Every structure is written in structure tokens, then in C-alpha cells.
């Protein structure tokens, strides 16, 4: 499978670049709040955040796409969409917990296909967010509200979309990666 042997390193890099994206897009959105009061003294720094957020969005999206084949087969098809694999892993963990005299992991439904569908929701929102970040980058360079106040609604709206989709992607990505990582299967 494409880059399967580098999947862990790619996932780590994907997570680090995503952290930069969440930080930059959140700062950019928060700094835009001054524009509502007509204050543009921080516009230069805000434009820099918009550029960093856009670059980080494209990089995160690209790295995520490199990881996607491995996720699709090894995680989605072989685990989330395979109840027998989830049940077998649960039984193995129960047996190991008993061996170590640890309390049994939480027993829940074996069907984890909802996690795969939740991940799909995230994938679509980040694709839209990535496009919005490029539109925001263009606006920050060529049509900033500092020069024309009529652009404020569009600028703030796109900033909100970029930060919102970045946060959505980060939170759902962490939720997905937490399965098999912390405690029981669910």
C-alpha cells in the first residue's frame, strides 16, 4: 500500500502541521475581531496568520491524503467496519486484563462503523475548509477589509469557516485515533 511503512511518521507530521493550522487559524480569527470596531492596526500580523494558516491547511490536507490509503484499508476496512475484529480484540484485552488482575475494559457495542462515518464527515469539512483558506489568502493579499470595509462580512465569514473546519478536523481526528489507543475498544 502507498507509503504504509511510513504511516506512523506521516501521522505524526500530519498532527504537528495540524497543530500549527489550528493555532494560526484561531489567532487569525481572534485578531479579526478588532476590525469590527474599525481598528486595523494589527492587519499586517493578521495577514501573516492568514498566510500561515493557508499553507498549513494545504500541507495538512496533502499529508492526510498520503495517509488515507493506509487508513482506508488498515483502520476503516479491517477494524471500524469489521465487527468480528472488534469483538476478537475485546476478548483478547479482557483476557490480558484478567491476567494482570486489572479491571475489565468497558464493554460496549462491537460496531464501530460510526467512527468511520464520523471521520468521513470530517474529511468533507476539511476539504471545504482548505478551499476557503485559499480564498481567504487571496482576499488577505488582494482585497483586505482594511482597504474596503464592504469586504468585512466575507473576510470574517471565511476566517470563521477556516478556524471552524480546522478545529473540527483536529477534534474528530483525535477521536478517531483514540480508538485502540486509550483503554478499551470503544
Amino acid at each position: 500500500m502507498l507509503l504504509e511503512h511510513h504511516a506512523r511518521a506521516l501521522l505524526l507530521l500530519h498532527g504537528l502541521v495540524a497543530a500549527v493550522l489550528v493555532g494560526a487559524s484561531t489567532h487569525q480569527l481572534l485578531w479579526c475581531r478588532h476590525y469590527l470596531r474599525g481598528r486595523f492596526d494589527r492587519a499586517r500580523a493578521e495577514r501573516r496568520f492568514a498566510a500561515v494558516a493557508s499553507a498549513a491547511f494545504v500541507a495538512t490536507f496533502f499529508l492526510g491524503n498520503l495517509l488515507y490509503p493506509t487508513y482506508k484499508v488498515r483502520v476503516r476496512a479491517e477494524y471500524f467496519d469489521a465487527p468480528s475484529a472488534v469483538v476478537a480484540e475485546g476478548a483478547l484485552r479482557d483476557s490480558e486484563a484478567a491476567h494482570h488482575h486489572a479491571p475489565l475494559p468497558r464493554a460496549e457495542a462491537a460496531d464501530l462503523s460510526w467512527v468511520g462515518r464520523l471521520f468521513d464527515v470530517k474529511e468533507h469539512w476539511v476539504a471545504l475548509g482548505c478551499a476557503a483558506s485559499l480564498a481567504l489568502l487571496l482576499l488577505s493579499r488582494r482585497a483586505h477589509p482594511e482597504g474596503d470595509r464592504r469586504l468585512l462580512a466575507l473576510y470574517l465569514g471565511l476566517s470563521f469557516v477556516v478556524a471552524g473546519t480546522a478545529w473540527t478536523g483536529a477534534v474528530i481526528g483525535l477521536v478517531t485515533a483514540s480508538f485502540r489507543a486509550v483503554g478499551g475498544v470503544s
Partner: protein
Amino acid sequence: MSAARRPHAAIAACTGLIAFCLAYALPSFTQLPNLYYDPLARRLFVGLHPGPLPMGYLGQVLYGVVAALVAGCVTWAVARRASSSAALRLATAWALTAVALVGAFFTWNNWP
């Protein structure tokens, strides 16, 4: 009128974003052929809903990027000559609505 007062760049960005959103969603609710990647065979192919494993995400993004570039460039050229506040308001409203509608469409279709 200065360049800042002529919002053709903003209108082009909006139409590009609207085109991206609509074209990205197009293969999901039409019988349009899409580009798929088969992760096991490691090959790209064009097809129609070929099953759960081949990934159509790349094709959807490609549809979106091509539509965004075409719509954005055409609008840039046209709106340079004539762009108004009303056109800007309309483009703003539709760009943000397109993101919300297409996002809601995929959320509804994949809701856990």
C-alpha cells in the same frame, strides 16, 4: 475608483469557492464518472461508485479545483470591468451558503 474600491478579486474568490463546493459534491449525488484510487491495486481509474474500498475523494477534490479555477478566472476577467456592491453582497452570501450547504449535505449523508 481605486483598486481597493473595485472588489473583483473578492467576487472571483467567492465564485471560485462556490464552484469548488458544487463541483466537489457533484459526483456524490449524480451519476458523473469520478476518479478513484484503489489502495490495494495501487492504481487510479475512472468509474461509477465501484465499492467501499476504492477512494473517490481525490476525484472529488480534482472536480472542485478545476471548477474553482475556471469560475474564478472567468469572474476575475468579467468583474474587472463591472463589479458593484450588490454583486459583492450576493457573492458573499452565496459563497458562505455554498460551504454550509455542501458541508451539511455530507454531514447528513455520513452522520454516525
